[in-house]
């Protein structure tokens, strides 16, 4: 089964290029949609299979060191979903480029699926690279100065991160002779006195992954990379790429390799809390719609990391749930920000006003996403934040729990400012003729808003079910 997640997008790429004709170029969009739908279907089947043995797995075992658990299956579903949304938006906003875009989407899907499924720290590095290289191209594709600048910043930071991760991998291999997550975990737990070089390797690994994840203080590239590219790319990047790259790797390492090392958990908890607060404070001061969302992303990623840093099953449940929720509601916000930019031509908050009457669906789905981000019940963000805060309290990170709770209020504050500036208030004469966004944007935001609401309402039942099954 895991091999399929790498094979299907690859077959898509091969088919598109092998039988390349002008006519078939039009089929690119369909192929992309098909690949994402198959991925979502397979991931759903896996989730049901893991949760209750409803299906028997299809076994294709070519690559031996891949594995999928419940959390990985959820993330695989999320990757399919956000890629699907991104393709729909691309189709309706910039259809000429759809052939190349679809292929890059499929490459980036292979990269992310690989990161999610690998069980070996070197393979992790390889697939992180696949994801990064494809995302540089996607950002630079717009070929405007800002986009090229964003791409170059991302390229530089990412290269530094890559170098650090690779050095750490080399040191681990020279010291322990193994690279598998389990082997490293066992060796690190067994070693009572950790040598200097292992400390060095861990510092390099933590720093490298933090750069990839865009955590404070390594977040400099995030706002430019998220806000400069075209709509479909910023949705994809902010929604899933940096999370399935850096953040997922951190979560998996905390879960399998470093579960016994309290110091690393404390370090990540600290970085996470700093990210939450700094991201939220920086977001308040922003004048640009997408940059505000980018800083908000940094803050929300902080919550995911803090949850995982608890090291308890409840903490991981909260972290992965917030991962999924953040992917949906932050993608929704980026879809809406792009829709506003496409309809009005502005992304500066000061120039926008009173669009609620003109762009009803965009406005109301934004409200759903804002409330979910701020953690207001009954939306999905509430459950994940509550679980993370409870997990923090249980393991004794009580000051952190309080800070995380208070930062939610900050989140609400900057989103209220944003909503009031962009959507509410009197419509200025300039926007009298503004129309609702095109079908691509509307259908994308409707799908994501419905998921946000449904997960919020249905989550207590899911939690109950998981508890009965003993899955957390």
């Amino acid at each position, binding site marked *: 089964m895991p091999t399929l997640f790498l094979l299907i997008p690859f077959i898509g790429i091969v088919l598109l290029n092998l039988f390349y004709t002008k006519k078939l170029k039009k089929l690119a969009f369909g192929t992309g949609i098909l690949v994402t739908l198959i991925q979502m279907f397979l991931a759903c089947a896996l989730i049901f299979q893991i949760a209750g043995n409803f299906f028997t797995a299809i076994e294709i075992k070519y690559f031996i060191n891949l594995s999928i658990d419940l959390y990985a299956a959820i993330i695989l579903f999320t990757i399919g979903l956000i890629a699907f949304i991104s393709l729909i938006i691309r189709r309706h906003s910039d259809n000429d480029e759809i052939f190349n875009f679809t292929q890059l989407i499929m490459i980036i899907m292979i990269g992310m699926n690989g990161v999610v499924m690998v069980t070996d720290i070197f*393979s992790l590095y*390889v697939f992180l690279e696949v994801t990064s290289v494809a995302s540089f191209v996607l950002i630079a594709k717009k070929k405007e100065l800002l986009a090229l600048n964003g791409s170059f910043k991302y390229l530089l930071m990412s290269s530094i991160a890559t170098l650090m991760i690779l050095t750490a991998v080399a040191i681990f291999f020279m010291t322990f002779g193994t690279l598998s997550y389990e082997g490293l975990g066992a060796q690190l737990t067994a070693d009572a006195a950790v040598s200097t*070089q292992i400390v060095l390797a861990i510092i390099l690994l933590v720093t490298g992954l933090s750069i990839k994840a865009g955590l404070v203080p390594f977040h400099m590239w995030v706002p430019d990379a998220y806000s400069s590219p075209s709509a479909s790319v910023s949705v994809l990047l902010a929604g899933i790429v940096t999370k399935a790259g850096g953040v997922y790797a951190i979560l998996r390492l905390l879960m399998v390799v470093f579960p016994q090392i309290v110091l690393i958990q404390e370090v990540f908890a600290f970085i996470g809390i700093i990210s939450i607060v700094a991201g939220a404070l920086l977001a308040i001061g922003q004048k640009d719609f997408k940059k505000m969302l980018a800083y908000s992303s940094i803050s929300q990623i902080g919550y995911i990391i803090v949850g995982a840093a608890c090291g308890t099953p409840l903490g991981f449940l909260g972290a992965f749930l917030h991962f999924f929720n953040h992917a949906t509601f932050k993608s929704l916000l980026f879809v809406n920000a792009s829709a506003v930019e496409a309809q009005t031509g502005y992304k500066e908050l000061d120039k926008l006003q009173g669009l609620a009457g003109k762009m009803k669906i965009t406005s109301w789905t934004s409200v759903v996403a804002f409330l979910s981000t701020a953690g207001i019940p009954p939306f999905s963000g509430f459950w994940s934040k509550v679980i993370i805060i409870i997990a923090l309290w249980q393991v004794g990170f009580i000051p952190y729990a309080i800070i995380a709770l208070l930062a939610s209020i900050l989140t609400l504050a900057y989103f209220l400012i944003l909503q009031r500036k962009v959507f509410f208030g009197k419509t200025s004469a300039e926007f009298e003729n503004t129309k609702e966004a095109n079908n691509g944007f509307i259908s994308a935001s409707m799908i994501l808003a419905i998921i946000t609401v449904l997960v919020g309402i249905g989550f207590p039942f899911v939690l109950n079910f998981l508890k009965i099954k003993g899955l957390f």
Partner: protein
Amino acid sequence: MNNTVLYILLGLLVFSALLTAMIKNTLKAVIALAVASVILTVIMFLMGAPLAAVFELSVAAGLITAIFVSTISLTGSTTKSDQTENNKKRLSRYIYLPIIIVIVAGIILITKPGLDFTSIAMATEDTVQSTIWQVRNLDIAGQIMVILAGVFGVVILFKERSKN
């Protein structure tokens, strides 16, 4: 004796790497990078890793240099005024680089942290083959995807530029 040669080579490696970053002419920078790769190849060979050395020589020193040179010949050169402007910025930006390297090297030499980098397993040619094609086939697939992404990037970005 062997160690002295190694230290000299390492010094030359750092020097050519610095040149790559600081030199103003892109073509010369590429040549400096190729020189760095060649020095690295010799170091790898001396340290008993002939396979890695061959890869380094063919890919890093050969292939990558060729790609860089062809890219430079495709793109237009900047104007004179731009160049002088860039030179000023470059000097102020990179002047700290050698100083930092000297300080870091000094700290490492003085403190001598207890790092034990003796490798626990040495690969022979047979194990390299079986490792690459059997144990690490997933990474080979991943590498193919990296190359594919890079090729797509070059094709997409440069093809569209030539249209403009």
